[in-house]
């Protein structure tokens, strides 16, 4: 039993790591996608930005698939409740991801509909960047669930104040992160624009962060008693302050690292507030937790071994691939 609990805790943490990994990696290409029309003025500039994400977005998106698969394997009851309950919202995300997945390849090779595919890339980036936060806000603030673990609300249940503010917080974080990445991978006028945008988005992020705090205070006062959440909140604030400083000094690498740190801080806060719940229910007795929603000890163990062997390999060759494509963009290179 103790071993089972340890595995459940480990999987709570691991799924957090996968989702955080997703937001750090795919986060910047979602941000670049959403900001494309604002950052790039000319076709050359667009190509520079697209070249910066082209070789890596696909591998980045796998972090989401890994997170979804891990949630299914480790906590199937939470997976079933969330994805059947948030049906239409998830469908919107899926439609966006479908269009986004083909958009860059098609934009480059389907000249007749270039505008359409560019819009698909932008829209396909904005929609998930906004809705991920909304979904997370819902499982944090609590959703109506019955004794069978079924979601009993509707699409509009999802659009309450705290989830919407979390949506904006997530969106601003993706945009800040994307702009920081754009600055890191471009030069000249485009880089300057990316830095100005990063600054504006960081301000928006700060505002959304304060608003989120007010929301949590109002709708989830119990969360204010979690010490760990305060520590991570301090990390977010510190990272944000240092972000402005690094941005001012033109230290692009450090700026990007700090927006990553701010993102990680957000995940830390969410994890601390949420633990041991996976999906908080409006009636706390019905919440899906790491205990009542988990797979068997054996499944968790096998999955843990798979992660133990697999993830270091993934991290290793992901680093290799980023080194291959390191440096400022080259719109004249191969590909798109």
């Amino acid at each position, binding site marked *: 039993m103790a071993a089972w609990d340890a595995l459940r805790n480990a999987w709570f943490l691991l799924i957090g790591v996968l989702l955080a990994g997703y937001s750090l990696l795919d986060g910047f290409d979602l941000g670049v996608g959403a900001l494309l029309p604002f950052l790039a003025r000319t076709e050359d500039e667009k190509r520079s930005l697209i070249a910066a994400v082209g070789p890596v977005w696909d591998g980045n998106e796998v972090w989401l698939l890994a997170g979804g698969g891990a949630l299914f394997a480790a906590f199937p009851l939470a997976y079933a409740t969330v994805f059947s309950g948030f049906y239409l919202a*998830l469908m919107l995300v899926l439609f966006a991801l479908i269009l986004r997945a083909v958009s860059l390849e098609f934009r480059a090779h389907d000249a007749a509909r270039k505008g359409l595919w560019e819009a698909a890339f932008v829209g396909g980036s904005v929609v998930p960047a906004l809705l991920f936060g909304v979904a997370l806000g819902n499982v944090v603030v609590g959703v109506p669930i019955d004794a069978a673990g079924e979601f009993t609300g509707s699409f509009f249940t999802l659009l309450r104040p705290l989830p919407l503010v979390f949506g904006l917080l997530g969106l601003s974080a993706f945009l800040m992160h994307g702009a920081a990445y754009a600055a890191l991978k471009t030069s000249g006028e485009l880089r300057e624009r990316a830095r100005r945008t990063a600054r504006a988005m960081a301000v928006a992020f700060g505002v959304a962060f304060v608003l989120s705090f007010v929301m949590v205070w109002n709708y989830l006062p119990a969360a204010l008693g979690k010490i760990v959440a305060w520590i991570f909140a301090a990390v977010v604030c510190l990272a944000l302050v240092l972000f402005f400083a690094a941005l001012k000094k033109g230290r692009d690498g450090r700026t990007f690292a700090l927006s990553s740190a701010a993102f990680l801080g957000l995940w830390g806060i969410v994890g601390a507030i949420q633990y041991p719940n996976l999906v908080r229910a409006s009636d706390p007795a019905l919440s899906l937790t790491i205990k009542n929603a988990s797979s068997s000890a054996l499944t968790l163990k096998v999955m843990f071994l*798979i992660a133990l062997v697999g993830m270091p390999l993934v991290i290793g060759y992901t680093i290799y691939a980023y080194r291959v494509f390191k440096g400022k963009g080259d719109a004249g290179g191969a590909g798109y």
Partner: protein
Amino acid sequence: MDAIFLARLQFGLTAGFHFLFPPTTLGLTLIIVVVETLYRRTKNGIYKDLSVYLVKILGTVFVLGVATGVVLEFAFGNNWAAYSRTVGDIFGAPLAAEAVFSFFLESVFLGILVFGRNKVSAKAYRRSAILVFLGAHLSALWIIIANSWMQTPAGFRMEGGRAVLDNFVKAAFNPSTVVRFVHTILGGWITGGLVAMAIAAWLMLKGRTAEKAAVLMRTSLVVFAASAILQLGSGHAHSIQVTRTQPEKMAAFEALWKTMDGAPFTVFGIPDEKNERTLLAVHVPKMLSMLVHFTPNGKVLGLNEFPKDERPPVLLPFAGYHLMILFGVLFIVMGLAGLWLRAKKKLETCRGYLKLLIWTVPLAYLANETGWIAAEVGRQPWAVYKVLRTSEAVSAVVPAGNILFSLVLFVALYALIGAAGVGIIFRTIRGGPGDVEVGVRKGEV
């Protein structure tokens, strides 16, 4: 229309559309690895040009596979929540393992294949191609593990209405995993081989880049012919496995209404499920018994052995199974014909054969799809064979209207990206290997 029907239709359409792309990837990555290896051995630039050409095509096929595959990772939670709750303890793990062991590998190294040719050494490039090949095939392994567990579940016990894992190796390598994996992979190699041959044939017919087209034709002919011939054995082994582990499915494949000693193989017929008979049936006497039991009077179970509410529908599995076999035989004939023409040194000049190759390409896709339909409809009425009925697997909270709404949007989106994707692939093919300038349009690098 009820929610169960709509949920099945949505899964069938999204999975069926997705299943156009991974088999192509399996075959194309194999041919790219072969071409890259030949390039390393011979240092002949023709191979490099062919690799560039095929990687461009692979790039488009791959994003279509990704776009349509993401949906499936979440489909079990969306429409099949009861399924996810009941068997998630076993079924979730292979999906997660697929992401960890194969999606990452495929995606990261495909990035290098498509964008990194000038950024890594030829050696690292060839290794990247091998890793994409490996990733694609591992992905097939994990998804076949998951799907085979639905066909022939093993390594679990039922506890409080939920399936609980007992033995991971037994669950993963259940009685149908290996044979279905081999069968699916060979289907992919046939598909990719035929696609590459058809491209070479088109270049030959147009009189373009004759030398490169000939090299591509020779390389892919070997892949295609060998896979088609091996598929005969793998298909046979698969049929024997189905007869042993899912006898009612084999009875549906063959429209065998009653148990028989010395069952015939039905070459053609129209199953009439209501009256339990096969119209216009053309039989080869005792052939089915011979095939599955290696003895002319072996006993093959008919549908009459099974309670009516546990029998699969007959028409679709029967039609799918027989069409697949028909196409499979055709591929063997075409593979052998190609080898014969090559031996006679007429492969490049026999225009009839070259044209036939091009027109046969859709049949490779139809063979994959009909085989898959036979396998999955033949599994009905079970979502997991004898464990969970499909009718009990759907999400209770999702209204039929929501499923219909998303279904309509899926169809519209898939039509859009399918049409555009095929257009791009055709344009890439027309660009030809090593004379890409022809294909360059404004704004494209």
